[in-house]
C-alpha cells in the first residue's frame, strides 16, 4: 500500500465526514418551506453516505491490518521452468507442429503473491537450518540391581549398577538424497554384565562397544539413495544390527527391552561396530533385500580380517485381517575365528490387533563344536492396553544355547512411560538363569529403571 493511496483515502474520508455533518446543518429538520419529499430524499442520501462511510472505515481498518503483517515489496520475480515447442529457426510455437521439438527453458515470471512477515521469517529459518549440521542428543541413565535367586554365591548378588550413556548425533545433508551421520557415544559407570557374566548382556546400551568412561565413535557413515530412492547405500563405520535382524517390538534398548537378547539375535555374531557397507533394495512393494559387510574387530589389521557378510530378505504382509506383519530371514558368514562360519536366522513381528504385537526370533550359528541356537519371543502392548496412549509395555523370553553346552534363559518385562516427547521413563524387571557347561546353574532377578532423553 503506497503512501499516496493512503493519503487519498484519508482525504476522501475527511470530505465525506464533512458532507455527512454538513448536510443536516444546511437542511435542518422542521424547516417549513422544505417539501417533505426533498427531506426524505436528503435523509436517504445521508443514510447511503453513512453506509459508505462505515464501509470505508472497514476498508481503512483492513488496510491497517494488512500493512501490519504484509511484506511491502514489489511482486516477486521467480524463475520458472517452461517447456516450449521450437522450430529449427529457434522460433517458438504455441503447439507442436511439423519441424518443431519440445525444449525446456527457463524464464522469469512476476508473481503476485502476498507474503506475510511470518512467511519470510519461516523461509529464512528453514533455509538456515538446511545449511547447518543438525545436532541431537540421546542420553540415558540405567539403574539396575541384581538379586541372586539360585546357585552358589556370586559376587553380583545384592549389587547395584548404574550406567550413564550419552550419544551426540550429527547429521548433515551433503547433496540431494545424500546424508552424513555420526554418533559419538560416551558411557560412564558399570553395567551388571561385568559381574553377572552371562551369555548375553543384561544392559544392551553397552552392546557392540569396546571402551567405557571415554568417548567412542559408535557410527560414522555416508548414506546415499539411488534409482529413485529404491537403492540405499550406507558406507563407513556401521552397526549392521541397525539394518539386519530388525524387529518392530524388540529391537531398541532405549524404549523396549533392555537385555541384549531381546534387542538382537546373538547368533548374528557382531561383537563390535566397524567399517562396512550396507545396501538396501526397497521397491516399496513389501519386499526388501539387504546385503552388507562389516568388520567386527577393533584389532583387525586389514579389511579381510574378522569380516562379516550379511544378507537378508524381508516381506511385509497383512494376513487374515490381523494387521501388518514383518517377516525376515537372514544369512551371514564370518571369518572372525580364522575360518568361515555361517549362521542364519529369522525375525518376525505380527500385529494381532492395533495395540498388540507378537514377535519372535530364531537363529542358528556354526561354532567350534555343535551349532549355537537361539530363540526368543514375546508380546508388546500399546494404545488401549497402556495407561497413557503413547506408553508401551512388553513381555519377552529368550533361550540361548551354545555348542559346548552353556545355556541361558531370560525373561523380561518392561513398562515405558512417555513423559513428554523428549523424555521417557521405564521400569524393567529381568530374570536370567545361566547354566554354564560343567558348572552349577545361577539365577538372578534384576529390577531396573531407565530414564531416556532425546532432543
Amino acid at each position, binding site marked *: 500500500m503506497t503512501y499516496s493511496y493512503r493519503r487519498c483515502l484519508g482525504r476522501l474520508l475527511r*470530505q*465525506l465526514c*464533512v*458532507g*455527512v455533518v*454538513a*448536510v443536516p446543518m*444546511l*437542511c435542518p429538520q422542521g424547516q417549513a418551506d422544505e417539501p417533505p419529499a426533498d427531506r426524505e430524499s436528503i435523509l436517504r*442520501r445521508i443514510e*447511503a*453516505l453513512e453506509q*459508505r462511510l462505515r464501509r470505508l472505515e472497514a476498508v481503512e481498518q*483492513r488496510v491497517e491490518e494488512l500493512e501490519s503483517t504484509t511484506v511491502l515489496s514489489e*511482486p516477486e520475480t*521467480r524463475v*520458472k*521452468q*517452461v*517447456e516450449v515447442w521450437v522450430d529449427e529457426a529457434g522460433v517458438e510455437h504455441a503447439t507442436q507442429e511439423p519441424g518443431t521439438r519440445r525444449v525446456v527453458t527457463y524464464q522469469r*515470471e512476476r*508473481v*503476485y*503473491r*502476498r507474503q506475510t512477515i511470518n512467511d519470510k521469517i519461516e523461509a529464512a529459518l528453514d533455509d538456515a537450518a538446511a545449511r547447518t549440521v543438525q545436532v541431537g542428543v540421546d542420553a540415558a541413565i540405567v539403574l539396575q540391581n541384581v538379586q541372586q535367586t539360585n546357585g552358589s554365591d556370586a559376587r553380583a548378588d545384592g549389587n547395584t549398577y548404574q550406567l550413564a550413556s550419552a550419544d551426540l548425533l550429527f547429521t548433515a545433508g551433503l547433496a*540431494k538424497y545424500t546424508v552424513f551421520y555420526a554418533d559419538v557415544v560416551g558411557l560412564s559407570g558399570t553395567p551388571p554384565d561385568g559381574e553377572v557374566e552371562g551369555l548375553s548382556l543384561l544392559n544392551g546400551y553397552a552392546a557392540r562397544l569396546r571402551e567405557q568412561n571415554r568417548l567412542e565413535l559408535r557410527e560414522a557413515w555416508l548414506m546415499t539413495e539411488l534409482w*529413485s*530412492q529404491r537403492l540405499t547405500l550406507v558406507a563407513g563405520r556401521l552397526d549392521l544390527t541397525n539394518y539386519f535382524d530388525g524387529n518392530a517390538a524388540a529391537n531398541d534398548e532405549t524404549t523396549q527391552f533392555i537385555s541384549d537378547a531381546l534387542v538382537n539375535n546373538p547368533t548374528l555374531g557382531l561383537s563390535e561396530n566397524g567399517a562396512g557397507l550396507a545396501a538396501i533394495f526397497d*521397491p*516399496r*512393494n*513389501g519386499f526388501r533385500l539387504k546385503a552388507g559387510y562389516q568388520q567386527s574387530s577393533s584389532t583387525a589389521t586389514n579389511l579381510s580380517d574378522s569380516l562379516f557378510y550379511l544378507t537378508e530378505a524381508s516381506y*511385509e*504382509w*497383512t494376513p487374515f*485381517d*490381523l*494387521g*501388518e506383519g514383518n517377516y525376515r530371514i537372514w544369512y551371514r558368514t564370518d571369518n572372525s575365528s580364522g575360518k568361515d562360519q555361517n549362521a542364519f536366522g529369522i525375525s518376525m513381528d505380527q*500385529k494381532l*490387533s*492395533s*495395540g498388540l504385537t507378537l514377535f519372535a526370533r530364531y537363529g542358528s550359528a556354526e561354532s567350534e563344536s555343535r551349532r549355537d541356537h537361539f530363540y526368543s519371543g514375546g508380546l508388546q502392548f*500399546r*494404545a*488401549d492396553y497402556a495407561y*497413557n*496412549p*503413547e506408553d508401551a509395555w512388553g513381555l519377552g523370553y529368550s533361550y540361548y544355547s551354545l555348542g559346548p553346552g552353556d545355556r541361558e534363559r531370560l525373561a523380561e518385562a518392561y513398562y515405558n*512411560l*512417555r*513423559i*513428554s*516427547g*523428549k*523424555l521417557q521413563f521405564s521400569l524393567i524387571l529381568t530374570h536370567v538363569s545361566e547354566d554354564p557347561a560343567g558348572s552349577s546353574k545361577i539365577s538372578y532377578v534384576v529390577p531396573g529403571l531407565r530414564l531416556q532423553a532425546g532432543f
Partner: protein
Amino acid sequence: MTVTGFANFVGTSVLVLWGTVTAASDGALSGQVRVSDPASVVLIVNRDSNDIAFMDIETHKLLGSVFLGKNVNPHMASMSPDGRWVVTGGSSSNKAYIIDVPTLTLVKSIPVDFAPEHLAFSPDGRYYYQGNPAGDSVSVIDMVSMTEIKRIRGFAEPLNITFTPDGTKAYIANYGAHWVGVVDVTRHELLKKIYVGFAPGIASLDPERYLGDIKGISNASISNDGRYLYAADGDLGVVGVIDTREDRLVKKIRVGEDPWRVYMSHDGKYGVVVNNGDETISIIDLGRNEVVATLEAGPEMIGVNFAAGKAFVISSTSGFLYVYDMSRLEPAGRIKIGSNVQIETATTDTADEKIYLASSTDHSVYIIDGRTEAVERVANVGLYPWGTHILDSKDNYCH
C-alpha cells in the same frame, strides 16, 4: 461546488460505478460458451498466478483460466453440484469468488473473513460455506443472492467443512482445537462442539507439544452412508468416530503420530489415515472401526486418492506417490513424479481411473493412470498449481 453538492456527487459516482461493474458482469454472463459440459473439465487452482484454470479432461488442453485479481492466492476451488458455478476463496484477498462456468467469467467477489481457504457446497447447491481459518469463522454464501448472508463465529481455525447427505447439518473441523463443530444448516448456527479426545494427564509435563503449535482436526470425513464421521486429531494421535444421528463420539481409534486426516476409499470399506509424525499410514476397517494395517509411507503426506483398487498417497516434498493394494492392504510400490518438485493435492476422475495431481514448483499437472501407473505431464498450467477438482469426483479435497 457546495458541500451538499459534493456529497451528492460522491454518492452518485459510487452508484454509477457500481452500476457499471454490475453491467460488466452481466455482459460477461452473456459471453461465449466455453465449457458446455462441466463434467468435462478439471479445475486447477493456481495459487500464484491468482487464477482458476480449466483443463479439458479428454484432450488435456487448457480451455482457459479466470483471473481473480492480484494478491488473491486462491486456495481451494469447488464446483456447485449442478456444475454452473465455481467458487474459491482468496486467502490473501479475504474474498470469496464466484465464476460462471459456461463462459469462464468472474461474476462476483464477496468480502469474507480473514484468510478464506477450504469450502463446501450444501448438497442442494443453495449454500456455499467458506471457512475462514484466520478469522475463526465460516461465511455462509447464499448462491441465489450471491451474498454472505451470515458469518458463523466461534470456531478455532476452521479448516474443512462436511455436509450430511441430507444437507441438514454441516460439520466444521477445527485445526486450532480438538473438536468438531455441528452447524444447523437451516439457521446457520453452531449447535454443538464434539470433542474427539483430550490430552492425557501427563501432557501437562509436555507444554511444548500441547500448548505450542496446536495440531487439531483438519477434516471430518463422512462414511458413504452418511452415518459416521471420522475426525483425525494431530496432537492426540487418534481418529474420533462421530455418530451423525446423535452427534456424539462413539469411538476413538488410535493411529500413528500426527495424523492429518482420514481419506475414505470409494467402496466405503476403509479409511486411510496419513500419519506425518511417524511417516506411516493407518488403514481403518470402517465396518469394525479398527486399524487393520499400519504401513510405511513417506514424509509430509497431504492427500490420498483411490483408483483401480489402489490407494495413492501423496508425499509432498519427496516427489513420490506411495501406492497400496487395497484388497491385500499391502504396499504396492511407489511412483516417482520428479526430483526437486513439490507435489500438492489431486483429484480422481469419476470413473476411478485417472488421478490429476497438482505439482506446484514445476507449474504442472500430472495425470496418473491408476491401473498402469503411467504418468503424463501437462506443463505450464499456471503458477504454483495448488489443487485440482472434478465435478462429482469422490476425491475432491484440499491440503
